[in-house]
């Protein structure tokens, strides 16, 4: 298999609004603050509850999913439980993924999976945190279903024609996480070390997991 291991997560995140110096606030920022203050004033929500919800989402990040994936590489029975029910399997290792069902899709030597939500941007947030901008972009949402191999190449991922590329459009209640293939040369690695190879992008499916050489 010839996969280019270039990883888009290496570059530094940059601010979304480059003109923030000229325009310190926008109408929607004002609207947001107004709605929040009105809800608190009316007793519909407390400031604490809003703050706790922010902290909850802050606590969700790719490292949680990476740990789950690494454990599936080490423990075939855990992998079977993950494939049956991600939410329950995540709870086993102390990750509360809430009510929305998450399904795991396993990459194999025959099939490479990639996930998109063409209609909005559904994403397994409660396991791996908020999605990157590109996942929510017009380009990703439009093109991944129709020319997945070209999109994957833009991420430096080349899947040979002998393998199937399978795209999953998460249109309904389920969210999806890809289980990337365990990289070669990791035979005696422990869970933490294996987890360091599992990137967010590999759980979306645009890249494989990192190789030992990439670390």
């Amino acid at each position, binding site marked *: 298999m010839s996969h280019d291991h270039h990883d*888009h997560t290496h570059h530094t*995140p940059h601010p979304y609004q480059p003109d923030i110096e000229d325009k310190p606030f926008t109408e929607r920022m004002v*609207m947001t*603050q107004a709605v929040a203050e009105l809800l608190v004033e*009316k007793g519909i929500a407390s400031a604490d509850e809003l703050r706790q919800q922010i902290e909850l989402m802050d606590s969700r990040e790719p490292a949680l999913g990476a740990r789950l994936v690494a454990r599936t590489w080490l423990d075939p029975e855990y992998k079977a439980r993950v494939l049956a029910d991600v939410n329950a399997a995540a709870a086993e290792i102390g990750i509360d993924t809430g009510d929305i069902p998450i399904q795991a899709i396993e990459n194999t030597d025959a099939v490479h999976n990639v996930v998109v939500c063409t209609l909005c941007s559904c994403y397994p947030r409660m396991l791996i945190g908020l999605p990157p*901008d590109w996942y929510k972009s017009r380009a990703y949402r*439009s093109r991944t*279903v129709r020319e997945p191999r070209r999109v994957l190449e833009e991420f430096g991922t080349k899947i040979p024609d002998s393998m199937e590329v399978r795209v999953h459009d998460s249109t309904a209640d389920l969210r999806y996480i890809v289980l990337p293939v365990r990289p070669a040369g990791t035979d005696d690695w422990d869970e933490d070390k294996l987890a360091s190879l599992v990137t967010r992008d590999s759980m979306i499916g645009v890249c494989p997991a990192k190789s030992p050489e990439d670390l």
Partner: protein
Amino acid sequence: MTLRRHHDMGGLDAGPVEAREHDYAMWEKRVDAIVKVLSTPDRKLLSTDELRRGIEELGPGVYDELNYYERWISSATNILLEKGVITVDELGAKMSEIEARWTADRAALDKDTRQ
């Protein structure tokens, strides 16, 4: 005759996927929190499905001009107004108050948007 709605974009042509990312601003996290809190079983003031439908109803121009969380807060606010959870009048007054606060006092803007 077929009708493709503006948000239903799977299969359309588009340029390269720009691998852009940004650290979420506090106001964006606040939008996310507002939506989640409004949708709790004991409140049921706004569901994910209503939010999506509201976003789809923003219309093609607005949909493309606004960014992701701007669409979220626009939709959520419209639905809260429809349901009478907040009134147009009190929203207008509150927005004016905040705009005045943030314009007059940079420290107030920083406090509200960074904490």
